Every structure is written in structure tokens, then in C-alpha cells.
């Protein structure tokens, strides 16, 4: 089977800034593929190239077997693109926006109703509300609806959940899961590392380069060495103290714990745990507890950033 997307050594520069620095990857049909990375990683540039909106400087891209530069008119009706910035008509109502995007692609809301029903049914109570007056989560659902209304085979969603609250984000990902089951190929980008686990495969991206591509499980399995969670009441104090611990490699606040890695990569996690607890207790953190934990995508991302010398 051919790839839904095939990209090889794609490069894009804006003046002196290299937005994409030789990016290569494939997306398979019916896959939910995520680009995970912060602002400035090149996600938006990549999505614009795939959506035929920006020309690459070098490298090749094939989207649904077509060249987004040469075959743009054949490609456009087959893809649904949702831009990172809210790009619907704020003065049109919810229903008017959907009707407009349907008309642009030569179809109607009625004809496509079953395609968009799972999402449109959530928007219908607000059908007459101006798009500008919707909440963040609802705006994103409307944008998804407009990107879907012409029955594309491939969805390109650039940061659909950025700035959206944790509950609306979950609901949005639930919708993507349902669309995938209907046979759509979905490529989505996000700065929220915890959303990686909702994807079949992810690419971790930073400053125009791919740090890793794999399933979320295999990405976290690639984390080198032991990762320790430090439980302590005075986390900031313990963080500063551990910075002085000679064997510490990295210490980051992580939710209600600190995540610690040791510079002695071959040392056993049990031994290191005991030593770290001992050090903290000797420094006045009597309640410190340490346990080995599996790495998250975010831990792996930070480790790869450090290894790539990407820390600002």
C-alpha cells in the first residue's frame, strides 16, 4: 500500500531562519499521526507545505500520491486543512460558516450531513450564534466541521487544541478517534506532550528537526537510563539542593514530583534511589521519597532536546 504522505528531506527557510531543516517521514493510510513540539518547531510550515499553501525550498513531498506543488488543484479537494489560527468568518453564524465551506467545494450541508453529524450535532444548539461568540473549544469543533464538510480523505489539523481547556481537548481527541474509525487519515500537531498518547505514531519536533518518530510507547521505551520520581513537600528547596548533588544529570519539576536522572548511566536504579534519598535527608528534607517510574513522552522529549544541544 502506498503511503498517505511521503516526505523526504524537506527544507524551508525564511530569510536567515530555517523553519524546516531536512525533515523526512511517512504517514500510512488511516493513521492518526501526531507532530509534537513547541512553537518554532516548524509544525505550521510543514502543514502549509502539505496543504499546498507554501512552496518548499528543497526536498520532496507526496500527499495522497500527489505533489503538493505541481498537483495542487487535484490535491486540494482531497484534503481538509485546519489552520492553527482561527480562520473562519467571525461575523457569520455557525451554520453559515459550514454552508460557506460546503459551497466552496461544490456541495451542501444537507448532502454532507452524515459525514459531519458527530460534530455538527454538538454545534447545533449554537447554530445561529456568530462564530466570534463561541468558546475556544466550540470554535475548534466548528473549524473541524468546516474542514470535513467536503469529505476529504486526509485531515491536516495544525494545533487544533492549543489554548483550549483540558476538558474540551479531551472531547476533541475523542472526535478524532471516531473520525479515524471512519477511515480518515489524520495528521495533527500539538504542543501538549500528554496528547501524544492519543496518536498511533508521533514525531517529536524541535527547531525544524525531528528528534524521534515512533509509537508513543516505543518513544518512551527509548528513554535511556533510570528515571526517578522524588516526592517531597518542599519541591523547590529540594530542586535547588539536588542541583548541588554531584551525580545529578537532570532535575525537573514534574507535576507533584521532581523527575531525576543520574549521570552514572550504568548505576542500578535501586542504588541511586537510596543515595538520592540519603542526600536529601542529610540536607534537611526528612520526608523525601524516591521511586523509579516509566518515562513519559515529555521526559523523552526533554532528554532528546538535551542530547541535541537544544536547550536555550
Amino acid at each position, binding site marked *: 500500500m502506498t503511503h498517505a504522505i511521503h516526505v523526504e528531506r524537506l527544507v524551508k527557510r525564511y530569510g536567515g531562519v530555517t523553519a524546516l531543516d531536512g525533515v523526512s517521514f511517512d504517514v500510512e493510510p488511516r493513521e492518526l499521526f501526531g507532530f509534537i513540539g513547541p*512553537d*518554532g518547531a516548524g509544525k505550521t510550515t510543514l502543514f502549509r507545505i502539505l496543504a499546498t499553501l507554501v512552496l518548499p525550498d528543497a526536498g520532496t513531498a507526496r500527499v495522497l500520491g500527489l505533489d503538493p506543488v505541481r498537483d495542487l488543484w487535484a490535491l486540494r479537494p482531497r484534503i481538509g486543512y485546519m489552520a492553527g489560527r482561527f480562520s473562519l468568518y467571525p461575523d457569520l453564524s455557525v451554520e453559515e460558516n459550514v454552508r460557506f465551506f460546503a459551497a466552496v467545494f461544490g456541495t451542501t450541508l444537507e448532502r454532507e450531513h452524515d459525514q459531519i453529524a458527530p460534530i455538527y450535532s454538538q454545534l447545533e444548539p449554537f447554530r445561529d450564534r456568530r462564530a466570534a461568540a463561541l468558546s475556544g473549544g466550540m470554535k475548534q469543533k466548528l473549524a473541524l466541521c468546516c474542514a470535513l464538510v467536503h469529505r476529504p480523505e486526509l485531515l491536516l489539523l495544525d494545533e487544533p487544541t492549543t489554548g483550549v481547556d483540558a476538558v474540551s481537548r479531551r472531547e476533541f481527541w475523542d472526535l478524532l478517534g*471516531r473520525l479515524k474509525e471512519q477511515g480518515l487519515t489524520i495528521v495533527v500537531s500539538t504542543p501538549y506532550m500528554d496528547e501524544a498518547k492519543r496518536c498511533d505514531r508521533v514525531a517529536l519536533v524541535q527547531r525544524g528537526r525531528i528528534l524521534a518518530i515512533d509509537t508513543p510507547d516505543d518513544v518512551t521505551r527509548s528513554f535511556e537510563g533510570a528515571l526517578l520520581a522524588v516526592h517531597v513537600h518542599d519541591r523547590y528547596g529540594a530542586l535547588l539542593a539536588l542541583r548541588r548533588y554531584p551525580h545529578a544529570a537532570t532535575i525537573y519539576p514534574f507535576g507533584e514530583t521532581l523527575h531525576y536522572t543520574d549521570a552514572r548511566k550504568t548505576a542500578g536504579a535501586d542504588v541511586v534511589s537510596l543515595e538520592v534519598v540519603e542526600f536529601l535527608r542529610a540536607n534537611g528534607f526528612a520526608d523525601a521519597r524516591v521511586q523509579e517510574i516509566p518515562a513519559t513522552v515529555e521526559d523523552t*522529549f526533554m532528554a532528546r*532536546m538535551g542530547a541535541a544541544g537544544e536547550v536555550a
Partner: protein
Amino acid sequence: MTAGALAIEAKELTRTFGTFVAVDRITFDVRAGEVFGFLGANGAGKTTAIRMLTGLLAPSGGRATVAGHDVATQTEAVKRNIGYMSQRFSLYEDLTVAENIRLYGGIYDLSAREIRERTDRMIGRLGLAHAASTYVRSIPLGWRQKLAFSVALLHEPRVVFLDEPTSGVDPITRRQFWELIYETAAAGTTVLVTTHYMDEAEYCDRISIMVAGRIAAIGAPADVKREFGADSIDELFVQLARRDPARAKPATPERTP
């Protein structure tokens, strides 16, 4: 303000727009030097509450003081005693790093000498000496956010409001930013911060979670988790936000592929 004093005190604070009650009689305190996480779903009333606390929007009912000044009647005094930084807008991209600092120094009425001294100190502390004459638009986002935070502190406010300060910032810089927050709080400045990263909620001394204009939970992260039987703030947030009657039910007819 004396030690242990309240930096923010809101009593039955309310704001309506026509018949819509955006903020519905919220009562809470923030102690001086505290890092307070102000959480809530989109549309829960956070922004309206912050606009009232920063003296930008008059309350419809109740009252609030910030750094000891009434937000309804002493808006100028409130504005002089607070700093504000948002993810969307905080610095002028067409001005250099040093020009941005000077501009804000001027707005806050600092003397030329104060501006000079504080500019040097800030640029040195942030390690931005090489970039003082660089346009803000061409420095990396992470640095820009750290600079914006420092600029919000330039006039040494008692309370600083940070509205999604780490949105889109890489995970390491995000953590470096939180260390700046801790340092600031340790030096006595009160920090009120909003975020969509639920792990960051755990970094706060106390948090509140707004649902439909009201404060549905408030306390130290560990205490509110215990109170509601949630394993994480993320779980608690979802649990509370789903109680909002205005939230459309996600139930949808499943279509067979």
C-alpha cells in the same frame, strides 16, 4: 503591606453582561508571596475575573482589593501596584530588548537612572547582554516569555498576573520559567497565574478552579485532590468542568464506518 497580609481579597465579586452572569459571587484570598493558580475551562469566567482584579473592568457587585487597593474605586493605585503578562501580547516585537524595557519603565514613571540600572540588572540576570539591541521579534519564544515576565516586574509590583505565560513554550524552557516564578514569589511578590498545562497547576501553592462563574474548588493542590478524590489536577479539572450545565453534552450518535 505587612508580612502575612492579603495580596488579593475578593468578596462576592460579581460581573454580569446583560442577563449573563460571567462571574458569580466569588470569594477568595491570595496571601502575599503566594503562587496562586487560577484555573477554569474556557468561558468559566477567569478572564472576566482577572479584568476586574486588574482594574480594567468594573464589578457589578461585591468588592475586591489588590495590594490593599479597591479595584472599583482605586483603579490607578491598583494598576501601579500590579504587573501583567499574557501569552498573546506582552512586548513590542518591532522594538529591541532594551527599548521594550525603557518603554515600560517610562510608562511606570521610573527615573532615567532607575531604568538604566534595572535594564542592566535584568539583561544580565537573563543572560541577554548579547541581545540587548536585537528586535524582540527575532529572539526565541522562550527568551521572549522570560523577558516579558521580567518587564512585568520592572516597577517592582506587589502582585503580578500571568495569563497563560507558558503557552507553546518547549518543556525545558517551561520549567525554567517556573523557576523564575518561584524566585519572584520567594522575594515576596505575589503571583496569580493561569495555565492550560495541568501539571503546572501542581506547582502552585494554592489553586482555584472556576466552573460557570463560580469557584468550584480552592486550596493546596494536594488538599483539593483529597477533597474530591482525584488522582491528579487534570482528573479533578475534568470532573468539575463536566458539571457545567452550559457545556454541550458530548453524546453523539455513533456512525458505523
